[in-house]
């Protein structure tokens, strides 16, 4: 089972079309291996993105350099998955 230790999910709120375009640019950078849970489209819709541990610092640095507002939705994805697995095991018992 693939693990997601250190993966973070960020919620990004854009203020204008320019910031949406910056996120669409980010989306196109395949080497970052970003998983957009909600894709960048319009300023009214927040963007949620799962970031592998190795890319977290780069993405945050990019967002901060562009002045794009974000918050951490999930601090460590694996912690949440472990809890989910534990809940399933308890239910099965």
């Amino acid at each position, binding site marked *: 089972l*693939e693990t997601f230790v250190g993966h973070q999910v960020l919620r990004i709120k854009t203020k204008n079309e320019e910031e949406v375009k910056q996120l669409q640019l980010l989306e196109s950078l395949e080497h970052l291996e970003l998983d957009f849970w909600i*894709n960048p489209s319009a300023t009214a819709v927040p963007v949620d993105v799962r970031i592998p541990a190795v890319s977290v610092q780069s993405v945050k640095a990019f967002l901060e350099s562009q002045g794009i507002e974000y918050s951490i939705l999930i601090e460590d*994805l694996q912690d949440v998955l472990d809890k*989910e697995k534990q*809940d399933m095991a308890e239910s099965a018992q």
Partner: protein
Amino acid sequence: RQRSGSFDFGAYHTLDDINSELDHLVSEYSFVEKIQIGESYEKRPLYVLKFSTGGSNRPAIWLDAGIHSREWVTQASALWIANKIASDYGTDASITSLLDKMDLFLLPVANPDGFVYTHTSNRMWRKTRSKIPGSICVGVDPNRNWDAGFGEAGASGNSCSETYHGPYPNSEPEVKSIVDFVKSHGNIKAFVSIHSYSQLLLYPYGYTETPVPDQQELHEVSAKAVAALSSLYGTKYKYGSIITTIYRASGGTIDWTYNQGIKYSFTFELRDTGRYGFLLPAKQIVPTAEETWLALKVIMEHTRDNMY
């Protein structure tokens, strides 16, 4: 926690457990039947529960869940809803009246290969598991693979993308099976596809900004359905057409169903927004299903009372 026999609706389950529960529902209720409408790329059966109290080729309502495999709350909610429909017939006036006039079809796991993969290999898997000739990447986004604006903006031609539209419309057997079923049935009046997680109730279109001819009616039904949903726990939903409410998406399920003449075509994006994304805790399954049920009832009652 809510149970039916040994099945816990407030927990996530494997595909085998889900299929066993479908059999259990069939054994408990004489008007519930399990039918196979096709099989997935990896040859898993696509099981639909048919709720029918008689008649031949009655007008019908279709519900499906889990076309994006990692959206676990959708498959789980579908099972709660299946049990609710079965157990409410004969006691709830609305459901009794509905099933006395119409059939109901429910596909709880529309992407079984992806679902099994989320349990065994990668919890974050969204697509099908079909192999793409010439690509190192696997899978197609089954909600971009329908023949409605297929391949246009709002889907990706990159086979490694999460929104890859596939080589051609209906290339995915999971999609083709539903397409064939809908066409051969010919009397489906409402089609609801259940996704998660951004709390939306959407109607066509996603591939074009041109409003559907029935926009006003669909908007009014959405407003009523969302009001019913929110009345239970205060969950806030937005509603509108796909393209105006969230983003351009081509090759989507309900755009195709609407173009087939199924006026009441909707898609839900269930909870949650702001905390867990696709990893909604199991304790929220039943509340999510309960509130969704209230909105579904509005859509189904409207369909029943406005036959076309």
